[in-house]
C-alpha cells in the first residue's frame, strides 16, 4: 500500500499544490474497480450490482413512469439521484453529503462503521429517527430499545453489499430481513396466538406491531416538500407481496416533479401508486392494535380510504385503498 496517491491519484513528487493535485480523484471508490477491488474483489463485484450502489429501485420507477421520455430523464436521474448512491468509501471512511460530508474518524477505514455515522446520515429522515425513538411521543423500535440491535444485526454486510443479483427493488431482495426469520413461532398457520391464526397470512406483521412512521409530501426537488407522521392500512402496492394488507406511506413523488428540468417528463405517472408499502422501523410487541380488535375493526381513520386520496396524484392509488372498513367485533 502506497501513499494518498494510491487511491486519490495526483502527483506526490510535485513541489506545489496545483501540480500535486493534478488528476486528483476526491472520491475514488466511485470507481471501486480501480481502487477497492485490488484487495476486495468479491465485495466490489457484488456491491456494483447492489441497490445501495446503483439506486436501481428509483431508476426502475423513473424508467416506468417516464416511458418514452427516459432518455431525457436519465441525465436528471444521474445528477439528482445517482450522485447520492453509496460507494464503498461513503460507508467505510466518509460521511454522506447530507451530513455535510467529511471523514468519519480521520482517514481511518472502519469495517463495521458506527450506525449513526454510516446509516443514520443517509437514512436519517425517516428510518433512523423512528428506530432510535426520535419521533416525539413514540418509543424506539423494540429491537433497539431492548436489545440494542444495530442496523447490521438485521442487515448484514452480505445484504448491504448485495449478493451479485441485480434486484429490481428492495422488496425483491431474497436476503432481506423477515420477522419470521427470527420469530418462526409467530407464523400464522397453527399459531397459538389467536390474532395470528385469525388473520392468517393476509396481513403484514407491521400492521399490528408497528407504531407511526414518517411519510412525505411533494418532491425533494420541488417547493412545499414536507413530512408528517402517518399510519395508514391499505392494500399492498408491491406485486409479489405475500400479504394482501400492509401499512402504506406516502412517497414524495408528484406529477410535475421533474418539470424544472424536463417538462412533462412522466407520461406514465398514473401507473404507479404514490402510496407504497411502508417498512416501518418502529416495531413494538404491544400496540393499540394488539390491545383490542376494535382499534382496527370499525376504526375508519387508520385505513387509507378513497376520500384520503389527492385527486391530482396517481390514478393507481385507487388500487391500494380500502373502500370498506371491516366492521366492529
Amino acid at each position, binding site marked *: 500500500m502506497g501513499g494518498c496517491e494510491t487511491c486519490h491519484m495526483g502527483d506526490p513528487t510535485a513541489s506545489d499544490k496545483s501540480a500535486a493535485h493534478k488528476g486528483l480523484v476526491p472520491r475514488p471508490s466511485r470507481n471501486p474497480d480501480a481502487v477497492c477491488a485490488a484487495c476486495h474483489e468479491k465485495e466490489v463485484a457484488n456491491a456494483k450490482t447492489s441497490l445501495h450502489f446503483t439506486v436501481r429501485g428509483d431508476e426502475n420507477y423513473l424508467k416506468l413512469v417516464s416511458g418514452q421520455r427516459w432518455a431525457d430523464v436519465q441525465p436528471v436521474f444521474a445528477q439528482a439521484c445517482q450522485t447520492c448512491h453509496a460507494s464503498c468509501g461513503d460507508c467505510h471512511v466518509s460521511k454522506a453529503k447530507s451530513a455535510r460530508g467529511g471523514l468519519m474518524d480521520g482517514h481511518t477505514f472502519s469495517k463495521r462503521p458506527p450506525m449513526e455515522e454510516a446509516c443514520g446520515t443517509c437514512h436519517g429522515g425517516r428510518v433512523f429517527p423512528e428506530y432510535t425513538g426520535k*419521533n*416525539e*411521543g*413514540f418509543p424506539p423500535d423494540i429491537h433497539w430499545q431492548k436489545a440494542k440491535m444495530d442496523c447490521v444485526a438485521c442487515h448484514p454486510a452480505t445484504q448491504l453489499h448485495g449478493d451479485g443479483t441485480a434486484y429490481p427493488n428492495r422488496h425483491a431482495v431474497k436476503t432481506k430481513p423477515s420477522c419470521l426469520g427470527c420469530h418462526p413461532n409467530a407464523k400464522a398457520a397453527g399459531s397459538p396466538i389467536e390474532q395470528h391464526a385469525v388473520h392468517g397470512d393476509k396481513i403484514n406483521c407491521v400492521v399490528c406491531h408497528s*407504531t*407511526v412512521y414518517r411519510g412525505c409530501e411533494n418532491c425533494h426537488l420541488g417547493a412545499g416538500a414536507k413530512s*408528517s*407522521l*402517518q*399510519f*395508514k392500512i391499505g392494500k399492498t402496492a408491491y406485486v409479489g407481496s405475500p400479504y394482501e394488507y400492509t401499512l402504506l406511506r406516502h412517497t414524495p413523488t408528484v406529477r410535475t416533479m421533474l418539470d424544472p428540468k424536463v417538462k412533462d417528463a412522466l407520461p406514465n405517472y398514473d401507473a404507479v401508486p404514490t402510496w407504497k408499502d411502508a417498512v416501518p422501523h418502529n416495531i413494538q410487541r404491544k*400496540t*393499540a*392494535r394488539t*390491545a*383490542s380488535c376494535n*382499534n*382496527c375493526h370499525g*376504526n375508519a*381513520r*387508520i385505513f387509507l380510504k378513497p376520500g384520503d386520496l389527492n385527486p391530482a396524484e396517481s390514478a393507481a392509488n385507487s388500487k391500494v385503498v380500502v373502500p370498506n372498513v371491516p366492521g366492529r367485533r
Partner: protein
Amino acid sequence: MLRRFSPMLLILVVVLSAFAVPAHAAEPQDSINAFLSQLPPDFETVAGKTLLAKLNAGENVFVVDVREPDEFKAGHIEGAVNVPLRTLAKGLNQFPKDKAAPIAVVCKSGIRAAYGTMALKMLGYSSVKDVAGGMLAWEKDGLAITK
C-alpha cells in the same frame, strides 16, 4: 373559673403552637415541592402532531375539550368530547371508566387545559396530558378540525 384556667389555657396554646405552627407551615411547602420536583420532562403536555399521530394509529386517547360550547362548535378535534372546565368534575360520567386510560385535555391556548389536567390528576386519572398550545397551535400546524 375561666380566670383560673386562663394561664393554663394560654400555656397550652403556646405549647401547641410551638408544634403546630412549623408543621402547618412546612406541610404545603413540602407537598408543593414534591409535586413540582416530580413533574415529568414533558410537563404533562403532548404536542398536537403527536396526539394526532396516536389517534391515527388507532390509540384510544380520550380527548376532552374544556372550552365553552360555542368555542367547541366553531371547530374541534375529531372525536373530542366537550366538557367545559368549570363543569369538569361534574362531567366525569363521560370519561373512560379505566382511570389509567390515556386522556388529552385541550382548550384554546393550553391554560384552561393545564387546570383541567391538574384537576383530573387530583381525581385519580393517571395518564392525562395537556395538548401543548391548544387549538391555536393545532390550527397553526395545519391539523384537521371538525365542525
